[in-house]
């Protein structure tokens, strides 16, 4: 059995609005194993993005401890956080977030540049990653010259450029049609063979592809058996349908 890559103990994230306190995440305990794909599902506002951001050191918890790949994320200094984002995690955004004036190749090479990889080595790896995701003919294209699905594949290549042990994707197919979304699922599935991929999604079929589904509601995890192929509960299905309209 694999050791846990991620361990959350009593993690909460609260926002204070006026006199009121909103618990976006409320006292979560969670373990996630090394490698495999985990889907995080739940209604809008349930805290999915908040959870993901804390795992990726993009946000700090109000309480509790977050341990990722042996590092206590909530206690890292500014410099250590930068190194953590550079080496341990890769982020995939719903809106792709490619750097608009860089080519696909340069976008993928950028995190490796931050990580001190030599120019020749990073260009070679960026090229091979893009080829692996069927983007060989698009190396010199700028983001605005790519389709949404192509942009997201570039973003995934960028996310895995430094070989992180964890990839976090927040609704990566939210801005894509179902055909492009399908390809993205397959790519994420493929990269999850070598690392842990956590995907926030409203899409039932992506959740079904996952090795594990985490249900979240009002900032709390629902008790659900961590089994692959579990159907979404009815309320969520209802929500997904509403959102799709």
């Amino acid at each position: 059995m694999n050791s846990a890559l991620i361990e959350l103990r009593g993690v909460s994230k609260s926002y204070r609005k006026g006199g009121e306190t909103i618990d976006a995440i409320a006292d979560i305990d969670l373990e996630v194993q090394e490698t495999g794909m985990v889907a995080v599902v739940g209604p809008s506002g349930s805290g999915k993005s908040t959870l993901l951001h804390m795992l990726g050191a993009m946000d700090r918890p109000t309480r509790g401890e977050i341990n990722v790949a042996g590092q206590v994320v909530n206690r890292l200094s500014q410099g250590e956080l930068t190194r953590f984002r550079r080496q341990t995690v890769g982020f995939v955004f719903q809106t792709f977030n490619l750097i608009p004036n860089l080519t696909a190749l340069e976008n993928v090479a950028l995190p490796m540049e931050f990580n001190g990889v030599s120019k020749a080595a990073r260009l070679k790896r960026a090229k091979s990653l893009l080829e692996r995701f069927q983007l060989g003919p698009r190396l010199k294209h700028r983001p605005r010259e790519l389709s949404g699905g192509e942009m997201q594949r570039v973003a995934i290549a960028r996310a895995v450029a430094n070989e992180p042990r964890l990839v976090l994707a927040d609704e990566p197919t939210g801005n894509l049609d179902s055909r492009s979304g399908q390809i993205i699922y397959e790519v994420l599935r493929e990269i999850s063979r070598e690392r842990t991929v956590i995907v926030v999604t409203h899409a039932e079929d992506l959740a079904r592809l996952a090795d594990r589904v985490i249900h979240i509601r009002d900032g709390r995890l629902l008790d659900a058996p961590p089994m692959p192929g579990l159907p979404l509960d009815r309320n969520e299905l209802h929500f997904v349908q509403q959102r799709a309209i």
Partner: protein
Amino acid sequence: MGMIFLGLRNLLRNKSRLALIVVLIGAPFFLLLAMQSIGEAVDQQTAEMNRSVNTVLQLRARGSMGHVNMSNQDRLLPDSVVEKVRAIDHVIQVEPYLLAMSPTTLPNFAMHVGLAPAAVKRLESHGESGNPRIIAGREFTPEDAGQDVAIIGQGYAEWAGIKPEDIGKATFTADPTRTHPVIYGINRPKRTLRIIGMYASGYVFGDLQMFIPIDTFRSIYGIEHGFSWVFVQADSVDNVAAIAQRLQETVGDVADILAPKSAAVFTATTSRTVIQLAGAGGVAALVLMIVVVFFVLLMQVRERAREIGTLKAIGASNGGVTIQFLTEAIAFTVLGGLLGVVVFQLLGEAITARLFSLGIGSFLPSQYKPLFDSLSVSSHVSGSVLVLVVAVAVFAAVIGSSYGVWQAIKLSPLEAMKDE
């Protein structure tokens, strides 16, 4: 290295905007260069004036013009004044003069000036400009002392019917008995002087004068003692005030002391004012640049908030983000600076002169206007000015961008991405 490169590439994202920014930065740079060159020109002008006129003081008998035959103005300085003045520190030259008026065609008159042959021929005039320049014949030599020779102004010569080609052979007869409403006759014989040179001064009254060796002058007018005027040359402008003070103490009881007021005032007030105005213009230009950089950076940080967040999320450090924006800011201020330099080289002289007369000339007392009309502003850009331009560009970029950069780095990646 990588972030510098990214910063430079960011310059080209929006080329028309880049052009606008470079023009907005270039304009204050042009202003800065113009102000710098005006300050320099005034400095030079002042130094020039300090060399020529600023260091000469004049003594006259108290309450008298000191003209030997002018009614009520004929009191002279006693001989002892010269020795007393020579003893004062920082006095490098003392030149005693004698002056007599001589009627020409009424109501005009000319001036006969007695001086040592080696003395600077200072004209009796109402301004210090227009020192005489020999246009025919020769200058005095030491051998001319006591001889019946003279150097005549071209206006006086014309009145007397002397032509430039006659110089050396021509003569002029001085007649001390002639009178005029303000000139009384001195009962002495006429004296015929050989005209050895002719000068031009550039103004009418300056040309109606005649220089005579002082001993000759004394024997013509029968003046055995005393001087009309004594010119006192200081070794530097800085000592003029002290010398004036010493003169007041030693000969103030018999002499009026005319310190070079106009020049001193010019140095003390006007040129300082101009240099201050130019300096203020320079500071305004710098502030303008910083304001432009400030708003450009603020706009860019706002516009690229999501990108900054993304860069941080994929592992860019705050230092890296800072370098990226700073590189971009320095690059466009330096480009602006170079544009300013190029435009200044092409149009500097014409525009600066106009800028000067509109922006600074109007603040000056009117009597200085002619001095400044002659001000020559150079559009030459030296190596040190280029260094200054780059230094100012970097300074403006760093100061102007600091707030924007701080906005960019203070946010966590998440906050940056949400900040739209």
